[in-house]
């Protein structure tokens, strides 16, 4: 058996179906890989070897008994540490939740388990998903497998690093302003932010309720689509969940045909501030799609320029309220409970010690933005901008089926480069944020390596609400054409990591 960790989820599924490998073997291979490389990558905060092997054994037993299993049954997965899993430590990258074991499964985890997907462990992230590099994690930075001196993106850098380091073929991320797509771009993997409401937020530790969206991460478009299909769909436990059929994402990923598809290049997402290597790969990808029969036009979304400031009012406002529950009373860290301090003091000491700087910064920003006398100027105004951005999208979708842009203005930057400059850090998400504000579906697909640094570039596709299949249609077409051009998937170019024994 060649290295099981190099296989896609689809290939692993075929191996299991053909009796050539068991889920336990596959799971063990990935646990071994984690043991070998994660000291240098640091993608995982918690590895649940025992739980994963038990789940794998269960799938093997059921398969042996002739039970009909889903296409991803027995395939291992890395779970972003922001989703609850019954009895498994969940920290959201924060000290304030250190040691907390949730008593319930998030809906995403329930669906993963029901599909027989094996959960290897919990992946690193910026604290409460606030960040674009994992440098805001309270448990250390994750390293980008393409260059260990660089960040893997964030907040879901742990998930993207895990799949690009071959520690898992699949991962779950959550995307509030780009936390699935930007890490996917930085690690040469596929990351999809489904339509807001297309995947359930129940059990997702909230950053910004009106923006958070769980989604799939994988090394190929089809793997991502299969995972998308598992986790998506209406959930009565989430009021903002959309009660409609899941878009036909797997079919679209298999078809991968863009002939006649109308593609709009967003004029505002490019130019100044964009790395030449990023723009070059992006333009080539657009040309490739044209050759494949797509009709490409340029469209303007004039209000996108206000997306970043609006986002940084809405997000902190909601976050300041969402994070109020971390008060030492019912779960998590408790500081100063020595019999001399009253409850209010204990709350205050705990939050002082348990939250990191970026979290405190956003709580303060949000508290201010919601204060009486400021609400209209900040939160109210930002909501109006949000409406204008949604209108930009609606107008654009009258002309085209999907919109495209680079996923990020630059490739992965060096660890420590932007940590002291929040604005520079925030600008990472210029291209990804508009889709969160409008609730659209969007994804990043690998489209090559930038000439100047040899690092992956992400191709960003945006589709209307509940038209997620269009993302896969474009991503799959691009993937097929590029793989042909390169003579293999982009991921095959990732450097071999030094294996520690």
């Amino acid at each position, binding site marked *: 058996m060649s290295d099981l960790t190099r296989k896609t989820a689809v290939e692993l599924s075929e191996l299991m179906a053909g009796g050539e490998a068991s889920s336990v073997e596959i799971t063990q291979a990935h646990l071994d890989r984690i043991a070998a490389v994660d000291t240098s990558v640091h993608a995982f905060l918690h590895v649940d070897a025992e739980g994963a092997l038990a789940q794998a054994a269960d799938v093997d037993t059921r398969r042996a008994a002739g039970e009909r299993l889903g296409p991803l049954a027995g395939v291992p997965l890395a779970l972003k540490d922001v989703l*609850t899993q019954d009895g498994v430590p969940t920290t959201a990258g924060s000290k304030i939740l250190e040691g907390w074991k949730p008593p319930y499964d998030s809906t995403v985890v329930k669906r993963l388990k029901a599909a027989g997907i094996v959960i290897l462990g919990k992946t690193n992230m910026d604290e409460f998903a606030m960040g674009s590099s994992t440098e805001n994690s309270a448990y250390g930075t994750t390293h980008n497998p393409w260059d260990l001196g660089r960040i893997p993106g964030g907040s879901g850098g742990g998930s993207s690093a895990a799949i690009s380091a071959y520690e898992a073929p699949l991962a779950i991320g959550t995307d509030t302003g780009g936390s699935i797509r930007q890490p996917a771009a930085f690690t040469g993997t596929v990351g999809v932010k489904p339509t807001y409401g297309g995947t359930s937020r129940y059990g997702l530790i909230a950053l*910004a*309720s009106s923006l958070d969206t769980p989604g799939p991460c994988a090394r190929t478009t089809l793997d991502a689509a299969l995972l998308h299909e598992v986790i998506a769909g209406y959930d009565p436990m989430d*009021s903002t969940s959309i009660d409609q059929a899941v878009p036909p994402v797997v079919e679209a990923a298999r078809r991968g045909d863009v002939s006649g598809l109308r593609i709009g290049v967003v004029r505002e997402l490019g130019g100044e501030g964009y790395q030449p290597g990023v723009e070059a790969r992006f333009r080539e990808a657009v040309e490739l799609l044209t050759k494949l029969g797509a009709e490409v036009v340029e469209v303007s979304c004039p209000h996108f320029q206000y997306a970043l400031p609006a986002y940084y009012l809405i997000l902190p406002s909601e976050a*300041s309220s969402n994070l109020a*529950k971390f*008060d030492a009373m019912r*779960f998590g860290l408790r500081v100063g409970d020595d019999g001399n301090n009253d409850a209010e003091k204990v*709350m205050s000491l705990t939050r002082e010690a348990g939250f990191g700087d970026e979290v405190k910064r956003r709580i303060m920003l949000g508290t201010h933005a919601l204060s009486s006398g400021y*609400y209209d100027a900040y939160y109210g105004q930002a909501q109006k901008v949000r409406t204008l951005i949604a209108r930009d999208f609606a107008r654009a979708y009258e002309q085209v089926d999907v919109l495209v842009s680079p996923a990020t203005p630059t490739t992965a930057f060096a660890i420590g480069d932007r940590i002291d400059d929040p604005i520079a850090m925030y600008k990472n998400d210029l291209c990804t944020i508009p889709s969160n504000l409008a609730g659209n579906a969007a994804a990043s697909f690998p489209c090559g390596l930038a000439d100047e640094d040899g690092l992956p570039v992400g191709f960003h596709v945006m589709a209307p609400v509940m038209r997620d299949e269009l993302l896969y249609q474009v991503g799959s077409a691009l993937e097929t054409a590029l793989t042909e051009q390169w003579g293999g998937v982009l991921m095959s170019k990732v450097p071999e990591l030094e294996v520690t024994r």
Partner: protein
Amino acid sequence: MTVVADVLDLDAALEQFDPVMGLEVHVELNTKSKMFCGCPTEFGAPPNTQTCPVCLGLPGALPVVNVRAVESAIKIGLALNCEIAEWCRFARKNYFYPDMPKNFQTSQYDEPIAFNGWTEVVVDGETYRIEIERAHMEEDTGKSTHVGGATGRIHGASHSLVDYNRAGIPLIEIVTKTIEVPPAKAAAVARAYVSMLRDLLLALDVSDVRMDQGSLRCDANLSLKPRGSSVLGTRTETKNVNSFRSVERAITYEITRQAAVLVAGGKILQETRHWHEDTGITTSGREKSDADDYRYFPEPDLVPVAPSREWVEEIRATLPEAPPVRRARLQTEWGFTDLEMRDVINGGALELILRTVDLGVGAAAAKKWWLGELARAANESGKELGDLGVGPAEVFEVQKLVDSNALNDKLARQVFDGLVKGEGTVAAIIESRGLALVSDDSALSEAVDRAIAANPDVVEKVQSGKPAAAGALIGAVMKDMRGQADAAKVRELVNTKLGI
């Protein structure tokens, strides 16, 4: 305990000032599950046994609106003649408190489900109109118990226990506009309003309205305006007013207290005040200032509530008749005079009498018990009539025994006394107190014989044509039987034995 503040005589206070009053009533709905999760709402379960990730505010949990609670809110709104919003949202009211799991309360803010209504109450035969500002939905908090202090309050406590069973119970807050009534009637109108609300909520079957369990709680806002002035005074918000009687007393107290402060040249502080049932006074709570900032914003975890007009009309069609119409109908059905009906309403006995009559007791008998023996017991114990431990079922049971001559009125009163004192069921009390009428004919017959033998002069009178004199013999028998005999039966026996 705080020193009792000086108060002015009520008449003196009302000579100089007009009270300006508004009431906020919180009603716990009787839905089976909580406002935003599926947890049961039963009262009295062991602490923290009716909780889940949602109502404990655990990370990741999300609320889902209880449709039954929305329906109840619409019912209440319609019954108070409110407009029902076509589209409204929940908001988050942000503040930190240990018994609030999320450290924000999910409530409605500037988009209530019901608004612009009115209702009427009757006090001393006069009808007063009360304007309703709004009725909105929200969730209850957990319940804190402060341990170790002398007073059970947080001050001086060594630690506090929180029971989250109550967290997330659906609440409707009903807010009046300024209630404008003759100053002397203010307190009585407030009481009548809360009492009317209770009757209404019971009739709508949306709440158990157990004031002793806190399922109806009243906050009274009050300020004084110098007579003839148009300048509003500073208001206080008196909390924890949890019985009809307290509503009246607390408002009266606040009028007299504020008047005393103002007359002495002092200033009223804008503050929350706590009502103390035992001492009959209010004490200063938290000072409120305009700096209180709850940072309300629309709850992003919920979608807007948009009740269709069809649904609202369906609900309207199920509403019971309006209270004034209903009162008039019942008065006719029961054959009560205006005065009697007023006593019934002022005594808070309307629903109790109705339910008793529904069980098959005559209206006059039902009124006799509820406004007589039971009202007296309620008054003595300072409880509400409905909270005595005696319900329509018990009244029915006792009256049935009276009707079948197993009890007489005097014995029945003793049964009620036993019920109020918690001595058990009707049957158990009759047994333990030995209250059954003697129906054993031979025992009665012997007693009659003894009375005849002991009173030859009376027998003589009766037999010489003065049948009224037999009353003395009957009295003697009743005394002999310690009252536990059916007087009519005794008369019959005496008459037979004396041949008249």
